[in-house]
């Protein structure tokens, strides 16, 4: 032993003498540097002695702390730090034990200086990468103590700041030390994260509230800044399985500290989380927020709105990663909340208060605030839009269909007519609710729709989406019909033309001023229009002649028509659109038309505006000439027949109902003009016959509406062959041949049956009960047979979700497709 001969001066072993020598006689003098170097050299060269040095230093430190000799404590820690940094050997492991014991000792002290000193040493230690595993090390106390320091409430502001900073750094150190080493304690355990995360948030919020806190030179010296970066640091390291242990305390903290309203802080926190979380897990955060929203189901709309707004904020950050695997679930949750909010609003806050528990009744006693609910609903719609925005297009269609499926449909077509007529029986108790729900859901749909870019009409409008949408376009409420039109706008419009067309302005002299972007419609789109054009036209027509229409409705419908023309207006489709316009004009001129004068004028205005647009787009000179001639005539003698449209203004009582022939567009001139440019005008010569439901049956009680809908069937059967047969004659295909065969059969039988039905209806309405009963017996047999015929044809036809008349293309059998038809109780009704 070479050390033996040096031991003479003291009985102490060499390492103890070396340790003792670093302490000066007066603690004010600080660490004796030269001796410290000797100690370091000794420790590095005698690794095996390191744990003893540590033990001895710890022993001294204990004593110094107990005697409150702070100067020596500081020196001990300095020595420890230096040794720690100097020795990267395997034997560091044992040394660390005594080191941590010393830090522990310092942290237990009540003196802020010692706590900070201990923390600083710990932070230095946390930066050392150990290469040997340490199985039995535990950080329980450190985490508890550091978290407690983060909440320090010292009266002295500077001390408070320093201790809080130290606590944050300590926690950061623990995380850094443990997170990468699987053998160490699992820092992601909830018992730890429940301490760590609230400590970060508490400090972030403290600084968030007081922006005027004295600015320090180093932003790192501000607890709120440090806490923020700590939280991000933790989030960055979190693996999928650990995310919930971080996010749940965050949500709980925000709940308990009531930080949802106002939500600036919550947004900041969640943005931080979203920016730092590993990108493949980004969708988890919105998911947790949605779950949290569910938990707050019964809470005030203010809080829910805040949560939803946060969702909206963070969704954009996540970009395409925000949705994750459960797309529909997200929308389902949001729509469910939307629905509940509407229900709440309808019941004036009473709906859910009955089933709330007594303990929370205090909260429910708060005055029900309808405005808050409305704001909440708007926030949901915005958020739905934000989610939709990040979806790929094909999913947007799915979402639109999903939302459409949630929209309550009018029960059947006759019921909408009933409401239109303000029939007392139409005042269903659920009516208002349905309208609100429809309103909200369609707004959501519009929000999604605006995010969608249409490529091909057929993909944009799958039948299961298109049909209900069109059905919605003719419901009673004019406000909702405007929304439906806007949905159509955004979906039909592909080249940002809608803003150029969607305005209530006068006749545009030169269409080039609008700078419309037109391209030739693709083949698929033409196919789509061939298939669905008639439906479009029917619904547009039906829509325009509604008595409740407002100016907005007219403008919106015009825009839809114009978009159809711009996007899809080629050849035969263009001719169809012209035909529609002319049919509208005819309808407005019909002396039997019961519409108010203002509406008639509005229709004339739209026709003029529309034909003007078509004329200018096609640039057929003779067409333009005719149109501009008529418009000029109107401008001179009847400016009320020109846009801008305004149905709300009163028309002078002297205004004529009829319109002079030279103020009208003439089908002959137009068809000539179109023919001159090579358009096939044969179909123009067949008048468009718009079939409305007969309304004479509507005075019956609602339970009999089935019969009413049967009437509709036969009316349609009659009209469909004319309106539907639109194939140019030269196009002899298999389809057209088939159509000829089918329609040949249908024409006769349909006409026949219709006549009989009308006869019966007539007698039902005009005869007495006795007469009917007598007549019923004799007719019963005949009727039964007819009924079988009808049922046969009906069961063959495909069904559409809502009972609306579809006008399928001529190749399919022309039947009315309505579900209730199957369930008709026909024989009973006929007998009495």
């Amino acid at each position: 032993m070479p050390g033996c001969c040096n031991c003479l001066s003291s009985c102490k072993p060499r390492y103890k003498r070396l340790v003792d020598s670093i302490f000066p006689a007066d603690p004010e003098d600080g660490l004796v540097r030269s001796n410290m170097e000797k100690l370091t050299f000794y420790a590095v060269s005698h690794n095996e002695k390191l744990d003893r040095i540590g033990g001895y230093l710890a022993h001294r430190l204990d004593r110094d702390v107990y005697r409150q000799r702070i100067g020596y404590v500081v020196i001990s820690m300095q020595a420890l730090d230096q040794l720690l940094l100097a020795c990267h050997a395997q034997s560091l492991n044992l040394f660390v034990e005594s080191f941590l014991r010393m830090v522990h000792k310092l942290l237990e002290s009540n003196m802020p200086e010692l706590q900070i000193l201990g923390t600083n040493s710990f932070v230095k230690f946390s930066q050392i990468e150990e290469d040997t595993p340490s199985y039995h090390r535990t950080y329980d106390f450190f985490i508890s103590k550091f978290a407690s320091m983060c909440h320090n409430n010292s009266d002295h502001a500077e001390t408070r700041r320093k201790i809080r900073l130290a606590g944050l750094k300590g926690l950061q150190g623990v995380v850094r030390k443990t997170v990468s080493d699987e053998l160490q304690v699992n820092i992601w355990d909830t018992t730890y994260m429940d301490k760590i995360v609230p400590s970060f948030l508490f400090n972030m919020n403290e600084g968030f509230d007081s922006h005027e806190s004295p600015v320090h030179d180093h932003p790192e010296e501000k607890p709120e800044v440090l806490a923020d970066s700590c939280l991000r640091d933790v989030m960055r390291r979190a693996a999928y399985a650990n995310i919930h242990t971080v996010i749940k305390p965050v949500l709980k903290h925000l709940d308990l500290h009531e930080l949802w309203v106002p939500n600036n802080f919550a947004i900041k926190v969640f943005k931080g989380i979203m920016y730092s979380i590993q990108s493949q897990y980004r969708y988890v955060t919105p998911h947790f927020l949605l779950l949290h929203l569910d938990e707050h189901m019964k809470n005030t709309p203010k809080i829910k709105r805040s949560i939803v707004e946060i969702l909206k904020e963070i969704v954009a950050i996540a970009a395409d990663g925000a949705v994750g695997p459960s797309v529909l679930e997200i929308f389902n949750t949001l729509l469910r909340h939307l629905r509940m909010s509407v229900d709440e609003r309808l019941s004036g806050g009473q709906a859910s208060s009955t089933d709330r528990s007594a303990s929370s009744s205090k909260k429910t006693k708060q005055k029900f605030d309808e405005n808050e609910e409305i704001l909440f609903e708007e926030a949901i719609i915005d958020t739905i839009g934000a989610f939709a925005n990040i979806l790929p297009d094909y999913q947007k269609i799915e979402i639109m269909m999903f939302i459409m499926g949630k929209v309550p449909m009018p029960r059947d077509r006759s019921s909408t007519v009933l409401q239109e007529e303000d029939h007392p029986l139409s005042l269903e108790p659920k009516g208002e609710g349905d309208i609100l729900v429809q309103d909200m859901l369609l707004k959501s749909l519009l929000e999604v729709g605006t995010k969608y870019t249409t490529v091909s009409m057929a993909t944009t409008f799958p039948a299961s989406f298109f049909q209900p949408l069109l059905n919605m376009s003719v419901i009673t409420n004019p406000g909702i019909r405007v929304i439906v039109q806007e949905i159509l706008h955004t979906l039909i419009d592909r080249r940002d033309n809608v803003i150029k067309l969607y305005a209530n302005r006068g006749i545009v002299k030169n269409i080039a001023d609008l700078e419309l972007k037109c391209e030739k419609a693709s083949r698929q789109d033409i196919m789509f229009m061939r298939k669905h054009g008639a439906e479009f036209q029917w619904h547009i027509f039906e829509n325009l002649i509604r008595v409740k229409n407002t100016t907005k409705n007219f403008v919106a419908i015009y825009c839809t028509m114009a978009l159809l023309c711009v996007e899809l207006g080629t050849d035969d489709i263009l001719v169809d659109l012209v035909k529609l316009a002319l049919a509208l004009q005819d309808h407005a001129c019909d002396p039997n038309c019961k519409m108010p004068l203002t509406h008639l004028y509005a229709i004339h205005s739209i026709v003029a505006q529309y034909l003007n647009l078509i004329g200018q787009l096609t640039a057929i000179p003779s067409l333009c000439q005719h149109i501009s001639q008529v418009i000029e005539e109107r401008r001179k003698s009847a400016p009320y027949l020109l846009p801008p449209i305004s149905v709300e203004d009163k028309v002078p009582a002297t205004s004529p109902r009829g319109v002079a022939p030279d103020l009208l567009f003439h089908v002959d001139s137009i068809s000539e003009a179109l023919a001159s440019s090579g358009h096939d005008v044969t179909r123009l010569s067949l008048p468009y016959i718009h079939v409305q439901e007969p309304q004479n049956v509507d005075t019956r009680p609602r339970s009999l509406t089935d019969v009413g809908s049967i009437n509709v069937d036969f009316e349609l059967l009659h009209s469909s062959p004319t309106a539907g047969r639109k194939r140019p004659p030269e196009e002899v295909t298999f389809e057209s041949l088939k159509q000829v065969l089918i329609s040949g059969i249908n024409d006769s039988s349909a006409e026949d049956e219709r006549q009989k039905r009308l006869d019966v209806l007539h007698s039902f309405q005009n005869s007495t009960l006795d007469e009917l009963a007598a007549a019923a017996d004799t007719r019963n047999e005949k009727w039964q047979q007819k009924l079988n015929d009808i049922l046969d044809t009906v069961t063959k036809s495909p069904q559409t979700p809502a009972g609306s008349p579809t006008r399928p293309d001529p190749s399919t059998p022309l039947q009315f497709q309505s579900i209730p038809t199957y369930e008709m109780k026909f024989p009973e009704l006929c007998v009495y």
Partner: protein
Amino acid sequence: MEDYKYLFKVVLIGNAGVGKTCLVRRFTQGLFPPGQGATIGVDFMIKTVEIGGEKVKLQIWDTAGQERFRSITQSYYHSADALVLVFDVTSTETFNALPSWLKEVEQYASPKVISVLVGNKIDLASDREVTNEEAETFADTHDMRLLETSAKESDNVDKLFLDIAVELTNNVRNSDIKNSLSEDPIRDHSSVSFCCRT
């Protein structure tokens, strides 16, 4: 080298303003701080006592009573060896809150934890709203010990913590007995003494 034989964690819980911090201060520092502000989060104190000739270190975690800190305070229950559930004898409200506190204890604390019910502020006898009998009944039904204290007058404060220390020490020793020689359980406080400053 070790300066203690056993280390126990004691966590104080109870409504805001019942005097948890004052109890801890009285015990650890021997002073009664008038106008003590509300605790934020969790405070920490340490006190070493000698029980049966052995040094026992008590880590005392003094939690905030305010509801907004509930999330962080709950996380401290888990590792506690003893829970001190404090209420204010001059406030029925704090007494009525006890069942919900017990529920939290059940939910978050370890099943082996000892809990002690403490009615504080008995010096304010004239304002007393919760009688000793009520508190006693409550403690009995929930199988807890009741101690009425006054942090201001230092009544029963030391006894409270020392009882806990003794009970915990005995528990540990009893479990030690199973694998080593038996030691007499400590029966009274005569063998108990303070030994350390913090």
